[in-house]
């Protein structure tokens, strides 16, 4: 009897160890799956950021060509009156091209000359007019000026167009390459930091397009969003958390806020289109309307964050304040709100970061227009950074790919800064009671 028991037990023992091996293998596999999932997610993030910074970095630099421009009085100001209007609108393009032609005297045929002229950007002459306006004395002299090249030459110079491909497949032709090589050998081609990218508005020409207009538009929009959603959100949250009676009405409000937080952003765009534009007749493409739409969108975020921050303030503080004779409102404004402020600000900054990255609702209210001017007020037509990215991503010119990536880098830079401030606020000022 005991013998049989013994043998049975040892049989089971062996069984057990075999299955144990299997179970441990399963354990290791499962653990590996989990780790793989995280590695996949993080590496996709790495690929995403890597490709964008790889594509975008060249756009921060721009190819310039050095041309000796003769400021011909006969072209700029034949009458010699030095009228500002004449000086501003003179044909500087011809002067710039003439300077370029002088570097290649052997090019005489008209069509070839035109191709040669296209080495320069169509807006390359602009610095010439500022030079003359700043100092009319230079008329009649020859100055050596660095001018912006066209986007094709720029991409070629950055090595993104391979000179060994068949000429027909290449946007830069053989003769252009030859000219660029000559200029390069003479030290007349240079890559410089692209300050224009940070200082100008949009343009159809990639080499002239900048993000400043979009940055200002984003800034104005966020100002409107902040000045609407912060006071409204904080007062709504204070009311719901500190004063509201528990009844159906406040329940309804709470359910509403939670649902609004989950409504797709594009639906807010439809609301803006139907209510702000059609019903109230507000201007299209204006940061004012964009800001209002984004304010409605970020309101739930701010309300929820503020309520959490208010909840974290211990009741003893309220009771102490009441005990020394403060009124209900004084308790909140003098004690609870200041203590909850770091949390509220953190939530607000996160909400603003969301608003800054939002695109879809702004497409609905017409902020997707092609706008060259930098907006100067909240009712001027303008665009915002994410929409600018969308517009550029849709443009066929190859150079816009780099511009788009560069704009994305700028946008991500802003977002990272905002989130870092939020994290810092939380770390620095958050108190655990």
């Amino acid at each position, binding site marked *: 009897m005991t013998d049989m028991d013994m043998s049975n037990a040892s049989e089971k023992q062996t069984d057990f160890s075999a299955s144990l091996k299997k179970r441990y293998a399963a354990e290791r596999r499962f653990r590996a799956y989990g780790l793989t999932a995280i590695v996949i997610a993080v590496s996709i993030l790495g690929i995403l950021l890597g490709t*964008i910074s790889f594509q975008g970095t060249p756009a921060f630099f721009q190819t310039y060509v050095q041309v000796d421009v003769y400021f011909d009085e006969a072209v700029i100001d034949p009458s010699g009156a030095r009228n500002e209007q004449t000086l501003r609108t003179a044909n500087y393009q011809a002067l710039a091209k003439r300077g370029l032609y002088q570097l290649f005297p052997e090019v005489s045929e008209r069509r070839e000359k035109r191709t040669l002229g296209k080495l320069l950007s169509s807006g390359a002459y602009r610095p010439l007019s500022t030079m003359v306006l700043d100092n009319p004395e230079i008329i009649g002299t020859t100055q050596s000026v660095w001018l912006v090249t066209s986007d094709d030459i720029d991409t070629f110079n950055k090595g993104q167009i391979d000179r060994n491909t068949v000429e027909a497949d290449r946007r830069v032709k053989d003769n252009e390459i030859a000219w660029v090589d000559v200029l390069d050998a003479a030290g007349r081609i240079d890559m410089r930091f692209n300050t224009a990218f940070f200082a100008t508005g949009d343009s159809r020409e990639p080499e002239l397009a900048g993000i400043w207009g979009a940055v200002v538009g984003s800034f104005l929009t966020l100002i409107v969003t902040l000045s609407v959603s912060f006071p409204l959100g904080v007062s709504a949250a204070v009311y719901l958390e500190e*004063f509201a009676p528990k009844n159906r009405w406040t329940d309804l*409000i709470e359910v509403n806020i939670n649902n609004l937080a989950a409504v797709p952003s594009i639906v*807010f765009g*439809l609301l803006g289109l*139907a209510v702000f534009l059609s019903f109230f007749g507000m201007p299209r493409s204006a940061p004012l309307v964009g800001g209002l739409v984004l304010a409605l969108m970020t309101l739930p975020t701010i309300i929820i964050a503020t309520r959490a921050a208010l909840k974290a303030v211990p009741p003893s503080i309220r009771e102490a304040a009441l005990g020394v004779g403060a009124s209900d409102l004084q308790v909140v404004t003098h004690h609870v709100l200041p203590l909850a402020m770091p949390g509220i600000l953190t939530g607000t900054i996160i909400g603003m970061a969301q608003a800054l990255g939002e695109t879809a609702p702004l497409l609905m209210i017409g902020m997707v227009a092609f706008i060259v001017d930098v907006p100067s007020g909240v009712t001027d037509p303008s665009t915002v950074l994410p929409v600018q990215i969308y517009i550029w*991503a849709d443009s066929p010119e190859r150079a816009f790919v780099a511009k788009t990536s560069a704009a994305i880098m700028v946008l991500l830079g802003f977002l990272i800064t905002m989130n870092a401030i939020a994290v810092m606020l939380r770390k620095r000022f958050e108190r655990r009671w």
Partner: protein
Amino acid sequence: MDSSVLIVTILILTLFGYWMGRSRARMLAGTEHLSVLHSLPSYHGSYVALWCGLPALLLVAAWLIFEPSLIEHIVVEAIPGARALEPAQLSLLIADIRNLTSGNIVSREIDPTLAAAGEHYNALQTISHAAMIVLTLAIAVYGLYLARKNQTRGFRARNRVEKIVRIVMVVASTIAILTTVGIILSLIFETLRFFEKVTVTEFLFGLNWSPQTALRAEQVGSSGAFGAVPIFAGTFMITGLAMIVAVPIGLLSAIYMSEYAGPKFRAVAKPMLEVLAGIPTVVYGFFAALTVAPFFRQTGEAAGLMVSSESALAAGMVMGVMIIPFVSSLSDDVMNAVPQSLRDGAYALGATQSETIKQVILPAALPGIVGAVLLATSRAIGETMIVVMAAGLAANLTANPLEAVTTVTVQIVTLLVGDQEFDSAKTLAAFALGLVLFVITLGLNMIALRVVRKYSEKYD
């Protein structure tokens, strides 16, 4: 005076009112201690300031909102024969009058009637503007005067101010409701107008979608077709692809993060995953359209497959990456909420860690996980920029993820961006699609909350 200058003037008056009310309260106290007053001087100041600024600012806001439509109405009434015009022609006429007055290009010849209307418009605008300035400033000054008259030693300024602040807070808290009502009303109104032109059954069950209505009746495809089934199918396909990516990766990362990872690993990996949710969707769209889609097409070509450059696959995969953090962080939270005693119990019975997770923790956390997946699905359905940039425009009814399909959000954007007239079926269709989107996402959220609430086990 510009309206912004007017607002600034009122604000300055308000500040002045605060200062006046406060100093008057101090004067009332005289040389005695401030406690002879019922309220502190600052409350007196705020009381005067509120009376001065609030009514005037509200009036300015109302004026700016209603002025344009009112003036338009008066001007149009004055034009002979304008009432008989079609709505579309009428809006064109109004636009012309506006352009004329602001010196822009006008779409028609300037005949005497139009010129007269323009002058009329200008005159009315000048009058209204002057009236607004005079009236608001008068109200501000009168409020100041009234409030100042009320001030005595025993005046309960604090109670009055607190009452006003409370009313402001109640109004602020109803904004959320107003927004929802605004969304629902604007969507429903336009949708009803859409269903006057297209029947509900055609919209919900029709298999053909080509919203481009031609200008002339005899052109091909002039009628336009509004059967939304291909769009719904495309939306579900892309959402499904996104979930195929997001659910396994998100769930497995959440499991690893909450059960296996040490605090140091967690401190690094969790924020990294959350960064994925913080990247603007337009960036994902750019990535999908310029990096992922060409990659899939080239791989497909190498494997002998026809992959469209706007394939559902690329858009769906990238969208899946975007919603990984929604799945992972919510699931992580619910798994962390499963009490340690359940784990200890399973270990005591000899279960390995993975067996504990699969047989104890996951079932316990299931309602929360289902809720998280539903919320992520609703996010994916409503996501716009990725699909606008990476998915197709043409409505294809297909089950092949390598082909281009379109989604509800893409159609809303393409129908409403660019030139639009506010009465065509094409524009109104976008609102009908918006309503469908709103109802579906809202429904998913409600179900998700219900699932979490109803089926969650309570451990204590």
